[in-house]
């Protein structure tokens, strides 16, 4: 029997003070793989863990297993730049992402685990006057939907973010910004750990080092999965495998509208606090940089996709240079700061830039995929909605637009607005 988990509170801290270090228990307990489950979830990332948590908590499903090829949180949930926001243009997207942003606000309490949601604001900078109308349009669309957005001119930008010195002569002069004040950052590893802990406490079996190699079916119904630890029967199967969704499509014999690309991120050495928000800037024909400062002082930076399919999890030098050059263009005082870590994640890029949460191939096989570079920020909403789909068989309104069939019927959600390509540089 797994040991009872400790509820985290000030009182618990005090008790632990007297009980000694043995008071605390592991966040989740390793369990043995059983041979039959109601729901098998493939992939112990943010979306898989959150879906398991909601299946157990909201829908009362008892026998759930999460099968993970490597380790909990080894993939993109631990590789992103921790930014959360809901400033998407299309209604199907901004209502969904807004649902996620609202859930981030209460998630620490729901999970009894501090995910360190920091609504420090997300500032989308415009580097030419021509970008302002598009920003105004996006901002107006958001405000009509009841989501906060504020358009700043250069004077307002200067008042709000003096460290940016918006009037300084620079290669890409600043023209204004669209700000979402409730956007910000969330401690990414804590999201994986918090969901794993909460799901485990509800009886979900989290099985690490267990790769799914095939799906067994009979009369067009999936019956279970072949794994490196043997065959597991399952009433329903959910694949939440992020960058490896293309492989899942190949395994199921269903070609998917997905290419896998790399997105890299990097962290600088710790420096004194100077940036209390998330800055995002797209430099036309040059690249993109988004940066924030972590509580430890390091600058967390990222940019565009590397630009071609890859599973290597190594970023290219060219893209790293773009990101760093963009950061130094925004803040010349960063020129001497060293990058201390750099990594990449594999992104399942769909052909319209929006996700897929739907059945796939079989009536009892589901796909939670195609998150492109926006998966982390949606985890709480995706978990709740996907659990409803898996438990009831009906997609809630919030994710009706994310059906796989939209590519056949033409009801695309082309958020980036450049047609059926994952990258247009």
């Amino acid at each position, binding site marked *: 029997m797994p040991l009872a988990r400790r509820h985290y509170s000030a009182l618990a801290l005090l008790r632990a003070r007297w009980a000694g270090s043995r008071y605390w228990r592991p966040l989740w307990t390793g369990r043995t793989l059983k041979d039959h489950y109601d729901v098998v979830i493939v992939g112990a990332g943010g979306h898989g863990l959150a879906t398991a948590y909601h299946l157990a908590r909201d829908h009362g499903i008892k026998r759930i297993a999460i099968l993970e090829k490597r380790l909990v949180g080894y993939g993109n949930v631990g590789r992103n730049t921790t930014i959360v926001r809901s400033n998407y243009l299309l209604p199907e997207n901004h209502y969904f992402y807004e649902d996620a942003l609202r859930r981030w606000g209460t998630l620490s309490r729901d999970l009894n685990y501090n995910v360190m949601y920091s609504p420090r604001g997300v500032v989308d900078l415009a580097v030419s006057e021509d970008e302002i109308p598009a920003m105004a349009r996006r901002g107006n669309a958001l405000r009509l939907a009841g989501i906060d957005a504020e358009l700043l001119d250069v004077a307002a930008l200067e008042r709000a973010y003096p460290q940016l010195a918006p009037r300084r002569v620079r290669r890409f002069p600043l023209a204004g910004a669209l700000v979402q004040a409730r956007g910000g950052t969330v401690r990414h590893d804590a999201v994986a750990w918090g969901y794993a802990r909460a799901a485990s406490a509800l009886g979900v079996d989290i099985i690490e080092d267990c790769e799914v190699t095939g799906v067994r079916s009979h009369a067009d119904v999936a019956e279970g999965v072949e794994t490196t630890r043997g065959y597991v029967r399952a009433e329903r199967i959910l694949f939440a495998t992020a960058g490896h969704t293309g492989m899942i499509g190949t395994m199921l014999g269903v070609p*998917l509208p997905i290419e896998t690309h790399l997105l890299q991120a990097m962290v600088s050495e710790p420096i004194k606090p100077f940036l209390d928000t998330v800055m995002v800037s797209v430099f036309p024909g040059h690249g993109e940089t988004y940066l924030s400062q972590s509580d430890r002082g390091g600058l967390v930076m990222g940019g565009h996709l590397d630009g071609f399919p890859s599973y*290597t999890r190594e970023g*290219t030098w060219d893209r790293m240079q773009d990101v760093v050059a963009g950061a130094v263009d925004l803040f010349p005082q960063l020129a001497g700061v060293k990058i201390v870590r750099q990594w990449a994640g594999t992104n399942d890029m769909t052909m319209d830039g929006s996700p897929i949460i739907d059945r796939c191939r079989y009536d009892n096989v589901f796909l939670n995929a195609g998150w492109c570079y926006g998966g982390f920020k949606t985890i709480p909403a995706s978990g709740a909605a996907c659990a409803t789909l898996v438990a009831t068989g009906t997609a809630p309104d919030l994710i009706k637009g994310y059906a796989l069939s939209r590519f056949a019927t033409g009801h695309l959600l082309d958020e980036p607005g450049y047609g059926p390509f994952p990258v247009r540089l």
Partner: protein
Amino acid sequence: MTSLSCPFCGVRELAEFAFHKTLPNAGDDPLSAVYLRINQVDDSHEYWQHVRGCRAWLKARRNPSTGEVLEMNLLGAVTS
């Protein structure tokens, strides 16, 4: 992967090349041709362009798990 080899220009920096798309899934219907992709972990068929060089269109076969280029040909060239 830091460079690619153009059949005209020889080995050049990766920054000179632009990836266009992976080859569509075999199938004549518009859905397959426009949206669906072949996803293989070790063999990717792709269109590239030497866009900041001779501007030739290229067809590549790469291993996306290692970055190794298996074949690089001019688009439309007869391959064995």
